[in-house]
């Protein structure tokens, strides 16, 4: 499974996006506000989920904000850190 696929599965299952399937999520859709409609509490949950599933620590939200733009941006961030 690619990082993108794994991420989408995590988003749907762990953030309980009830009516969505991973395939419904557009790689470039914004995660927050319009788009997936996530909020500040989801943002900190996402930090924990990335720690739990990828073993990567995001130390503060300034770092998170850039990575959390979209699924594509977050996948690139995760792959960059895992391979870096």
């Amino acid at each position, binding site marked *: 499974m690619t990082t993108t696929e794994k991420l989408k599965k995590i988003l749907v299952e762990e953030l309980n996006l009830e009516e969505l399937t991973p395939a419904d999520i557009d790689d470039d859709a914004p995660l927050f506000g319009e788009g997936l409609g996530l909020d*500040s509490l989801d943002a900190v949950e996402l930090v924990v989920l990335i720690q739990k599933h990828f073993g990567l620590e995001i130390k503060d939200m300034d770092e998170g904000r850039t990575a959390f733009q979209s699924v594509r941006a977050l996948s690139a961030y995760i792959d960059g850190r895992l391979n870096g």
Partner: protein
Amino acid sequence: MPPVAITGMGCICAAGQNLGDCMTSIFSGARAPAPPVRFKSNHPIRYPVFEVPGFPEDPAMLRTSALGLHAVREALSDAGLDRQTLAPLRVGVCVGTTIGCAMSNETFCRQAHAGANPDMAPIVQIQRSNPAAVIAREFGLSGPCQTVVNACSSGTDAVAVAASWIRSGLCDVAIAGGADELARITYIGFIALMITDDSPCKPFDRNRKGLNLGEGAGMLVLESESVRARRNRKARAFVLGYGSACDAHHLTAPHPDGAGLRRAIAEGFSTAGVSASDLAFVNAHGTGTPENDKVESRVLREMLPGVPYLSTKGYTGHTLGAAGAIEAVFTAACLERGEIPGNAGFSTPDPDLIATPVREVTKVAGTIALSESLAFGGNNAALILGRGETP
């Protein structure tokens, strides 16, 4: 609304184990947050907290309730009340807390998680530790007994509930305040929310990163005018008014315009019959989290321009359910002294915040002050206190 007299106060927190020691300590500017001593965490970062050092554990009750009882003993003694003088009176108890009544215990949960049959002793201890009930039991009180769990505004709300009981004649004397222990579960939870500072907290400062947790209790004795006249007791302060309102916005984030806080302050003013220009100072919530301080400073600037304000959380940490009560006690004690301490942790003004707190010990003119709390779930509470009759 008619004022309600406060005839006794007690306080325990990292700044001291009684009110006198707390005031001496915070006016000296002292503070010493350090990583927790009473529990461990496998989190890679050790976040500083404000623990009450050397406070003995009581196997009969949760630390929260023991801290509450400690402050109640001081407050009753300050009011000149003991078991005997309380016996013929209708005495109510209203205590705010957050974790003190949560029916959970980590040891129990870990054992259950591991498939064992956990020891029930911690659960029995919790069942006997409702902080208001512990106080009512200890002193054999017969009035209404209520534990308020309004997250971080609990202590402020509890004082107002008790004042309402006195005003309406439901009781002669009410013991009111808040208590909360520093607990591992809360410590981990606040770290997870990413609103905890890994250095000493810096309320309203440009470089603030979050709060430090603390623990303690603040207690006040409220008394009806008829009982007070019979006992010939002077008031140390008065509860003049109170307001509260919910943001109805988000579980953990304050309303960006501070809508609920504005309504709470407005109701506080209207019930007290005062306006912004009557205030000597504001004891702000000022947790040191980026969002809280931003919203709060904006509301203070717009509603209370020019009124000096400070957060005392730089000296106590955020004591959660106890915070509003400890800060009410500090507010009353500062009105007595006619001065407020500096806002510990503040050094660099934040260009995003349009108001700044006082930096050092500041004389204040006036007899009325506001103590405010913002809480999880969007609760906002504003308590208006007036100076008492003691010299």
